[in-house]
């Protein structure tokens, strides 16, 4: 490039070649106006791996988390995750990977699954209209009609099977899901998040990293907390990700929800689940453990929750700052839509804030991750030991009723170790919090083993599995 084009670029904002509206799902059309963002968006198809992140390059012998860490098969015994559980990949794969997982092909799944694996704004609104919601598809998403359509359509998919909803979805996450087509402003469009963040705002959990919620509370909690009108731009730069990178319940027994009603900390989420009653009055759990008989909770990718406990969120650093850094494209700075591991582009992702060499930053991340990983293996060892003890106890004749108290230990311990494992930064998003959670996991698992020895002759239990 020469100076003339530099100067031209500097002036150019973007050419409006096509008109975008609430019905434009296809990112390629948006790409006509925003070729840079579209180009990078498409690059999420590139395979890569880092020491703990990414997946799918030849460097990683297997993309299967189960083969890489066979303890997980024991931990998830009786649940779909025991048959197929892989490393995440780029956004481009989200639809495909979900359709192809054995969790879907070999087990019945709800249409709610689609919530985070496709561009649903139009899909939901169309279904909502069919279900009798008011208005039409042209109305801006912020209108109350459109919101009603969105919600009605979403609820409809939760009552449908995955196989019914699948064919309706056309694209992985698309521009429309995060942007207003008229202003390009960020917005949240996922019903689970819209409800979840309002529930969080109503809780008492202190959220210094989400100042607009603190303000809404101070001003008397009027109406609902609406991120799209109340959150700052910097908060939106994380909230668009929090639409999907969160712990959730998504199954046949209730409409998908984010469990944030007590707050974002692991104990608060656990307490919400423990207090939650299914329609039949029984207590919440995701599955009955096939080996031990315990009723346990499954954790899924709590990135938003874990980030919330770290120092970066407190310092106002958003997901996008690290995962969608600004890239100089000629004279312009644009947000990289090649969402990926920041370790693949440390210069842009970290160095604007940290004035140290890239190797040093990488070493800091890996120090944190190595510590988390070692402690996680320790905690998994303890949980698996408890499960095998329970197995032996059952063989020795104890039934679920007799083991009730010990099952609680497994529920607590397993929930904690799974939470850190399912979180996709190997502890980086909140290093001390991840270690704290794992410390508790160890304690509960080992306490369970100790208590069990009051009920069963220790000689009948397996020898101690150790780290």
């Amino acid at each position, binding site marked *: 490039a020469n100076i003339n084009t530099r100067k031209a670029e500097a002036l150019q904002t973007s050419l409006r070649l096509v008109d975008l509206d609430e019905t434009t799902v296809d990112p390629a059309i948006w790409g006509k106006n925003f070729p840079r963002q579209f180009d990078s968006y498409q690059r999420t198809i590139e395979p890569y791996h880092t020491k703990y992140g990414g997946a799918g390059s030849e460097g990683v012998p297997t993309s299967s988390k189960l083969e890489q860490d066979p303890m997980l098969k024991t931990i998830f015994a009786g649940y779909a995750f025991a048959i197929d559980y892989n490393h995440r990949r780029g956004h481009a794969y989200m639809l495909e990977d979900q359709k192809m997982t054995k969790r879907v092909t070999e087990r019945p799944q709800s249409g709610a699954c689609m919530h985070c694996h496709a561009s649903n704004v139009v899909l939901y609104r169309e279904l909502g209209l069919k279900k009798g919601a008011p208005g039409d598809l042209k109305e801006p998403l912020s209108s109350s009609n459109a919101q009603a359509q969105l919600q009605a359509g979403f609820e409809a998919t939760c009552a449908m099977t995955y196989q019914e909803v699948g064919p309706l979805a056309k694209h992985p996450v698309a521009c429309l899901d995060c942007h207003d087509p008229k202003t390009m402003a960020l917005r949240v469009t996922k019903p689970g998040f819209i409800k979840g963040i309002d529930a969080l705002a109503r809780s008492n959990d202190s959220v210094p990293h989400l100042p607009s919620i603190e303000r809404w509370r101070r001003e008397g909690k009027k109406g609902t907390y609406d991120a799209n009108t109340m959150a700052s731009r910097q908060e939106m730069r994380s909230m668009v990700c929090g639409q999907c990178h969160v712990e959730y319940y998504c199954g046949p027994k209730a409409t998908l929800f984010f469990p944030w009603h007590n707050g974002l900390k692991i104990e608060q989420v656990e307490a919400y689940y423990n207090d939650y009653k299914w329609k039949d009055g029984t207590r919440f759990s995701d599955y009955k453990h096939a080996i031990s008989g315990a009723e346990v909770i499954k954790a899924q990718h709590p990135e938003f929750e874990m980030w919330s406990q770290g120092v970066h969120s407190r310092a106002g650093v958003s997901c996008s700052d690290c995962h969608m850094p600004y890239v100089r494209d000629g*004279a312009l700075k644009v947000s990289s839509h090649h969402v990926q591991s920041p370790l693949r582009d440390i210069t842009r992702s970290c160095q604007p*804030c940290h004035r*140290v060499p890239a190797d040093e930053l990488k070493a800091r991340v890996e120090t944190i991750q190595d510590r988390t990983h070692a402690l996680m293996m320790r905690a998994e060892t303890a949980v698996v030991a408890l499960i095998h003890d329970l197995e032996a106890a059952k063989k020795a004749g104890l039934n679920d009723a007799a083991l009730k108290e010990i099952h609680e230990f497994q529920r607590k311990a397993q929930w904690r170790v799974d939470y850190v494992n399912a979180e996709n930064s190997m502890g980086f998003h909140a290093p001390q919090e991840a270690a704290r959670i794992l410390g508790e996991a160890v304690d509960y698992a080992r306490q369970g083993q100790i208590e069990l020895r009051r009920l069963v002759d220790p000689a009948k239990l397996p020898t101690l599995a150790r780290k």
Partner: protein
Amino acid sequence: MRGKRSLLLLTLATAILLGMFAGSGAYTFVSAHGLSYMSDDPKVCVNCHIMREEYDGWQHGSHKAVATCNDCHLPHDNVIHKLYVKASNGYYHAKGFTTGNFPDPIRIKASNAEVLEANCLRCHGEISSELTAHGTLGVPTDPTRKADLYGCVRCHLEVGHGPVR
């Protein structure tokens, strides 16, 4: 004496021009307001949009009223040093700007960090005299690390350009 000095100046001015030509060619020089580069006005620096962030930061920094870019970023020990640094920086800036081949984010080079530190002391030498009585703070001690970790800017990073994070 005076003759000698203006000869030196002439030589140096030529060197600067040559530096900028070598880095970018005459076209760049004119187009990028090469001549105004010789001035001390901060606006000169934002002739390059690349310097926009620093310029904006300086506007919000604590030194806007008391120090221009060149007060901090050019040597003031003697005019020859000043012009030499100006020439070599001019070369790098023009080259970087034209080829688009420079680190992003831009980072101060170790040699320029030393210049910077000397300027802090030029204005604040007295107040920091007890600290510098046994050596300056800004000496790089580890070849893999930059000088900036150890100098005044280790703590006062934001004086020039406001908060960095």
